[in-house]
């Protein structure tokens, strides 16, 4: 398949791995931002091709994992209402709230539906004028344009029974939060390719400069990721801290201008709480004044609220890359995809789920710079 096979080519991967070994002379800790990259690394066994000096740690870029518990609880409360059709992307349905998940609400009679495009939820609202249709708008900059489009469509068509439960988060503030933490180990980033497809790379220059870290915009296939690692290691070995694009087939320096203006029109930057990390100022998106009538929290009086999470799993440390899934005592025992203790075990993009599915005992993995099960 074009644009896929060539980036999963074994020989190309081995050549890049050899190049990485050649340029590596000392230990480096790199973080891949996006959960899609984590999934690909573990699924294809990419880290096994790297020299032992290189440690990959898994970043916070899994929207399912960082959506705070109170938002999940609000989603569950809305989905349980008889007058609501609750729409979501698929993998949010299994994330546990305080007491249950959305799939359980569905089994109890709630009208919970998976949609592929946010605008489908607006169309559903048009078809069901007697119901309130709520869309769970989670995700990073990647999903923001499509969600903005849905709101604008609803606004233009006057679809009053549509609203969105918004939990949008932004990548650069999370990177800064990680870099300014006293526990930080990250020396270089593989930035999330598709976030940059939308936003471009402009926000990363100041971060690279301020914290002295190389930031390489990286894709998702094995060859893409190895290329990203190669460029990042090369920078670290030569003492550079620059922004480079290793995913130019999908990312332009300036990003997608029309997608950005759509986000700008509909959303404004707000403080957001990240599950496992805490509140980060200016780290998320909320609806702007003209569109706030579509804010489900306002419409249903759900604003505010802070749910305390019992300290049981270490997903916060996982999401910041301080710990690896295998270092958690609950991993694979109390915590499995059937009984997730934390969100990273739920989504296929979550680091714990990726480790659980592809990396349990008995599989020889060499060159994995960190802890192994």
């Amino acid at each position, binding site marked *: *398949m074009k644009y896929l096979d060539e980036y999963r080519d074994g020989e190309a991967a081995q050549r890049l791995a050899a190049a990485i070994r050649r340029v590596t002379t000392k230990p480096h800790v790199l973080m891949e931002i996006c959960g899609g990259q984590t999934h690909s690394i573990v699924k294809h066994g990419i880290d096994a091709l790297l020299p032992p000096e290189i440690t990959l740690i898994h970043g916070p870029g899994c929207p399912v994992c960082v959506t705070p518990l109170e938002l999940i609880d609000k989603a569950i409360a809305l989905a349980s209402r008889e007058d609501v059709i609750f729409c979501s992307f698929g993998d949010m349905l299994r994330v546990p709230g305080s007491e*249950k998940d959305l799939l359980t609400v569905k089994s109890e009679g709630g009208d919970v539906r998976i949609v592929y495009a946010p605008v489908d939820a607006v169309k559903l609202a048009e078809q069901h004028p007697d119901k309130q249709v709520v869309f769970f708008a989670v*995700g990073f900059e990647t999903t923001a344009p499509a969600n903005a489009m849905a709101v604008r469509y609803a606004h233009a068509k006057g679809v009053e029974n549509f609203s969105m439960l918004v939990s949008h988060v932004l990548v650069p503030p999370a990177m800064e939060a990680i870099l300014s933490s006293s526990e930080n180990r990250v020396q270089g980033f593989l930035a999330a390719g598709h976030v940059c497809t939308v936003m471009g790379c402009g926000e990363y220059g100041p971060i690279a400069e301020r914290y002295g870290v190389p930031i390489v915009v990286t894709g998702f296939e094995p060859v893409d990721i190895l290329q990203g690692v190669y460029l990042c290691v090369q920078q670290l070995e030569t003492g550079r801290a620059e922004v480079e694009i290793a995913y130019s087939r999908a990312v332009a320096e300036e990003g997608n201008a029309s997608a950005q203006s759509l986000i700008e029109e509909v959303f404004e930057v707000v403080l957001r709480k990240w599950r496992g990390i805490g509140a980060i100022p200016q780290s998320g998106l909320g609806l702007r004044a003209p569109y706030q009538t579509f804010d489900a929290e306002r419409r249903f009086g759900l604003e505010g609220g802070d749910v305390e999470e019992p300290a049981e799993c270490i997903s916060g*440390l996982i999401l*910041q890359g301080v710990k690896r899934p295998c270092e958690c005592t609950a991993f694979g025992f109390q915590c499995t995809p059937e009984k*997730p203790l934390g969100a990273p075990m739920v989504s296929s993009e979550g680091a714990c789920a990726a480790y659980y599915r592809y990396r349990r005992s008995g599989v020889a993995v060499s060159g994995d710079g960190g802890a192994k099960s």
Partner: protein
Amino acid sequence: MADEFAMSCPTPLNAHDRVMMAHGGGGVLMHRLIEDVFLSRLGGGGAEQHDSAVLDVAGVRLAFTTDSFVVKPIFFPGGDIGSLAVHGTVNDLAMSGAKPLYLSAGFVLEEGFAISELERVTASMSAAAEAVGVKIVTGDTKVVDRGKGDGVYINTAGIGLVEHDLKIGAKSVEPGDVVLVNGDIGRHGMAIMAKREGLAFETTIESDSAPVWDAVSRLLDAGIAVHCLRDLTRGGLASALNEVADAAGVHIELEERDVPVRNDVRSGCELLGFDPLYVACEGRFMVVVSAGEADQALSVLRGDDDGSGAAIIGAVREASRGMVTMRTSIGSSRVVDMLSGEQLPRIC
């Protein structure tokens, strides 16, 4: 902020006290339901768990199985609920190496369902049965209130004749064996998804729904000592392999580049964030034979058009417990796990 952080988790969802859709997904939850609720109370028959039960009746070995069909939409590219209801059950019989003889057909009809559609479904069933050489000899009809069903559900049960002396099943799988499939995987599941979700590809993906008895009988007629057969329905190839590896206590190692997946199916899976290893087929099965008979089995499978995509996909190795791994296209290795419930489309 980050260093003050102490994470935190919600209360775990330990058990489901209601049936979830995932209980029907062919993964871990379904197996647990079968073991905890069904087998503990209804599993007194003593037959080995397989796609069909092989029973000794007055000196004759009969295979017996049943399957229910609730597919939505009922008409899809490459088939419909009627042909599927025949193929599904005759294929379960074939997985015991049994020649399908007789089927029952039970219909649960929803009030308001168009008779013309029911006629289409039954005509399709009849044609599928005739093509396999199986007779539909008994049946049942029930009607439920409008809104309580999806038009039509069909249950079929089947009886087949076992004429070989092999012990076909996971317990016969041994280290050193080789695993084959009879063609490309994942087409039925993607055909259904594409139709259900209105996904348009450049070409229409047609279901692989087909009877496999002909291919199985050719393997047996060729004198190949088949160790295990398993059809790749719900949960796909990965779930079937895990069940076999678990029951046999062996390690099955797949070679990623050898697993046949058509480009349109791969594209669809990439789009939705699915793994084709877990996508259902309805005319595909895996067969385990000794290494010495692998090439012969492959050429037998490739002996007709439907088997042109047959391939050797992996090998059985010794292990302390059942597991499935895969050599990836870039030369690493990873676990191929049993899915928990259903595959859910990813956010991005």
